[in-house]
């Protein structure tokens, strides 16, 4: 590889090490007409519902539905056969509450109102009449696609906003336009303790008060309307209010309030309001609910736990472990662990003369140079304990026999799977986790007839993994949404030039960097397999000059790395999405420039 290149030109030299790459969204499923709408999943382990695994079972999919599930189904002549021998089939997950597909509102300046004590309802965040249909973007955006790639087949999407943003609907994650994706509309009223900015309600206590006012007035107004409907003679014509009318189904207990209650105080406040006002409620996005476990179970409310978790504090935990174990004199396991760690880091060093410093740093941390003072040590232990409580919350709810679901609100997509695995490690049963992602949310959202299990007659939103889902290295091989294969990892593999099994992105890519006034382009070649992929790039200025990079880091679908040329560092961060990627290149003091790329046909 050539390293001596003039820095006067901006040359984009990219070298990367890829981990195995799971994201590959077919963007074109709408464009090409399907050859067939009949699929036959052959000889798989079918996880029909939590706890029920059917071996050597096949699934026939037709017209977007699961036609049959069983051991000896005949293969129709027009079926595309998916050989799923030794693979596992799961019902598409159901996200019980999410903002996926709903564009974030821009953080505009605080709106000016004449009377902050009585502002217009929409500015105050009181828009219960809004529907999510109007809020979701024309074409389902990336966040929905990302959830789909994780195995989610259905998402209960609620609008963004403040205290009462509007009503939520259940969408299929198929790559259709939003209107066609809605499978059940206006199933919920979304609520949160989010105050307005600089106007009433500007505080939590204002929100609480306003909520009471609204529900009370909706009740009076609803009753009066009913009385007027029976006999209007001599009665003043009812005044119409969009906001109150939208709350009629809530006060009639026909529509539940999905109250966003991440922390223990939110839970308490939501329970207080519900006790006073009496409506159906779902505690939603619960991140820290265990301290009020008895109140929650006594309330009988449905619970949607957050899939978010505090950042993992693994390293510090190991430290604490070691210290604790030392005290106990139980050194054997500890030593083994230590050896293993060192072995691993050795391996990395051998492999990684090209590898970054970044990855080595955390290893160094593991052996603190000096012991923590008692105060720091105590604080670390408390943090660790708290961390463990968050992680084992789901297990605690399971133990209390609460039927809970999961929500991705506030959860980074790339953390979802790992957080699930952490919760399982924290004591949640695999079946419990599966139920919280399938059957429980299906019944919560009233879609059990069409979703939640791999059974005849349900919408064909399923995914197929190479290993049982909760095994660490399990990967999704096929994704069938709305009866169509939207992701086929096996096929992608065949396209590669006989690389190792785990190669996903190997190939030749073209890239472009937009610099004001000009545009740089070049070629990027990805080679290798598994954790040992390499990428080299040249530029149109000097074709054929390939360069290596450093500080390579793959986080979900985002790859970041640096290349240094003549003392100048180019920091590249790109996000892969199927056959394309986009991101940025930061060039020292020159600024940051957009970078896009597409895969070249082989």
């Amino acid at each position, binding site marked *: 590889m050539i390293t001596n290149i003039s820095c006067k030109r901006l040359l984009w030299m990219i070298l990367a090490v890829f981990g195995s790459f799971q994201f590959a969204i077919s963007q074109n499923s709408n464009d090409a007409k399907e050859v067939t709408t009949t699929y036959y999943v052959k000889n798989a382990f079918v996880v029909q519902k939590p706890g029920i695994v059917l071996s050597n079972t096949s699934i026939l999919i037709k017209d977007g539905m699961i036609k049959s599930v069983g051991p000896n189904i005949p293969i129709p002549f027009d079926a595309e056969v998916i050989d799923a021998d030794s693979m596992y089939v799961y019902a598409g997950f159901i996200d019980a509450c999410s903002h996926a597909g709903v564009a974030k509102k821009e953080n505009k300046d605080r709106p000016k109102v004449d009377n*902050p004590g009585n502002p217009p309802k929409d500015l105050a965040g009181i828009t219960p009449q809004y529907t999510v249909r109007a809020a979701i973007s024309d074409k389902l955006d990336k966040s929905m696609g990302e959830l789909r790639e994780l195995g989610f087949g259905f998402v209960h999407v609620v609008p963004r906003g403040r205290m009462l943003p509007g009503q939520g609907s259940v969408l299929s994650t198929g790559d259709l336009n939003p209107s066609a994706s809605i499978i059940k509309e206006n199933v919920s009223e979304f609520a949160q303790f989010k105050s307005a900015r600089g106007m*009433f*309600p500007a*505080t939590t206590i204002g929100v*609480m008060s306003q909520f009471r006012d609204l529900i009370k007035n909706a009740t009076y107004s609803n009753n009066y309307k009913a009385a007027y409907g029976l006999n209007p003679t001599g009665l003043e014509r009812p005044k119409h209010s969009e906001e109150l009318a939208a709350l009629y189904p809530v006060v009639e207990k026909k529509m539940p309030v999905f109250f966003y209650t991440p922390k223990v105080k939110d839970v308490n406040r939501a329970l207080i309001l519900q006790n006073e006002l009496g409506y159906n409620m779902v505690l939603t996005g619960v991140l820290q609910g265990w301290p009020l476990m008895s109140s929650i179970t006594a309330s009988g409310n449905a619970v949607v736990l957050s899939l978010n978790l505090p950042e993992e504090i693994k390293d510090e935990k190991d430290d604490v472990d070691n210290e604790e174990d030392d005290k106990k004199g139980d050194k054997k396991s500890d030593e083994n662990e230590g050896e293993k760690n060192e072995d691993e880091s050795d391996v990395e060093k051998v492999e990684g003369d090209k590898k970054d410093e970044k990855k080595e740093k955390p290893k160094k941390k593991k052996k603190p140079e000096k012991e923590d003072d008692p*105060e720091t040590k105590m604080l670390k232990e408390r*943090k660790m304990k708290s961390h463990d*409580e968050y992680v*084992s919350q789901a297990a605690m709810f399971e133990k209390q026999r609460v039927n809970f679901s999961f929500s991705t609100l506030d959860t980074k997509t790339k953390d979802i799977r790992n957080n699930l695995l952490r919760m399982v490690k924290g004591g949640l049963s695999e079946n419990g986790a599966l139920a919280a992602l399938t059957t429980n949310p299906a019944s919560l959202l009233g879609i059990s007839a069409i979703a939640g299990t791999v059974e005849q007659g349900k919408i064909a939103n399923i995914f197929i993994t190479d290993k049982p889902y909760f095994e660490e290295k399990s990967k999704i091989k096929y994704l069938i949404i709305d009866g169509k294969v939207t992701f086929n990892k096996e096929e992608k593999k065949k396209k590669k030039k006989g690389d190792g099994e785990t190669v996903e992105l190997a190939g030749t890519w073209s890239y472009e960097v937009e610099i004001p006034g000009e545009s740089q382009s070049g070629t990027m070649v990805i080679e290798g397999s598994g954790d040992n992929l390499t990428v080299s790039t040249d530029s149109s200025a000097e074709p054929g000059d390939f360069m290596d990079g450093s500080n390579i880091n793959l986080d979900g679908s985002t790859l970041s790395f640096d290349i240094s040329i003549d003392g100048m560092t180019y920091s590249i961060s790109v996000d892969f999405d199927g056959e394309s990627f986009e991101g940025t290149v930061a060039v020292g003091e020159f600024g940051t420039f957009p970078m896009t790329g597409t895969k070249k046909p082989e």
Partner: protein
Amino acid sequence: MKKYILSLCAMMIAFTVTAQETGSILIKNGTVLTITDGVKENTDVLIKNGKIEKIGKDLTADRSTQVVDAKGQFVMPGIVDAHSHIALETVNEATNPVTSEVFVGDGLDPQDVGIYRALAGGVTISHAMHGSANAIGGECETIKHRYGTWDPDDLRMKNAPRTIKFALGENPIRVHGEGRNITPSTRMGVEQVFRSAFSEAQLYKKSWTDFNTKKTKTPPHYSRRMETLVDILDGEIIIHCHSYRADELLMLMNVLEDYGVSRLCFQHVNEGFKVAPELAKFGAGASVFSDWWAYKFEVYYSTAYNAAILVRNGVVTSINSDSGELIRHLYHEAAKTQRYGDLTDNEALRLITINPATQLGIGDRVGSIEKGKDGDIAIFSAHPLSVYAIPQMTIVDGIVRFDISNDAQDMRIDIDPEEKFDDTFINLNAEDEERCMQDVYSELFLGETSQSHAGHKH
């Protein structure tokens, strides 16, 4: 895995230790400052299931009852603070001159370590108040310092009378008049806000009476703001009014007289000494600082003799903290009335026990060591009015909530696993900011902070 199971077990235990639990405890051989029945040397106090059962010599209790030896120590009723903002997440809903619809009890924060610090000063009850941004602020909550709970409901003192915050003078004028150019821009305007609000509430009440008696058929618009004001007119809520100047004290009493409202306690009341007989005649309480003033223009004409003058004129007087720091040594603050005003020991102690309890409408339940009252006790190493006194133990409903011999370094309840240690130390050591005007600047004037407004914000 083992660790997870362990922490699971720990949590299961934690669930069970909630609710408004009560305990039994026998305090032996202390000098008991009963407040209402003199000082009793070498006397025992037996608390059973949260209530004081016996006061006397050589008391015994069953084996399950914890026994505390208070020999050489002083046993007094738990201190009551009639003006505080601890355990609150939000203090001011400053968007309107009248916000009687809000209730700070909706924003309780039982994880506030300030509660524990108050306990460490012998304080067992505080009055969690709305701030003073509005002429008519929100309803307040009387809380018992049952620190250690996650559930805000555990803090509430059940069946304590409802109270509400009013405010006179510069604060509402600054926020609404200067801040937004609406009424009140003057002290006259503040009076008008009260009169308008009460008059509207009278009409509101009538409109609902007419509807409920079927005189009218269309339900009026329901308004919590008006509902609360009606309850004030009906005598169900005690007004606690932020105030300084004598003319304004008289003004509010006149307004309330016109509307037939009599339950009133003034807060701060720095010029109360000028109109003490008038306060006594109205039956208004006065909750004051011992010696704190000159933090804004209307608070210059003040004296440390204020409390003593009010007491001698028959006004039910208390000394409050309005601060997460002062609340830790209210017994010192009470002692200052002996230096300035020569109050007796018992008069001084009444300022932080039975008197504030009376002002909060809970004088029949707490504030003195009497049979049948709540088992709220503070034990001191020396007489609590001595500068050498150190709080030893604080008991709420018969349960030890602070014990100097078992005082862990980190008493926080809610630990953020993502918090950086530097932040932890900063938070732990942070001085409590004055909170009477909390939320006002951040909510209303983007870019301005309370710090940029020099001076005290009471």
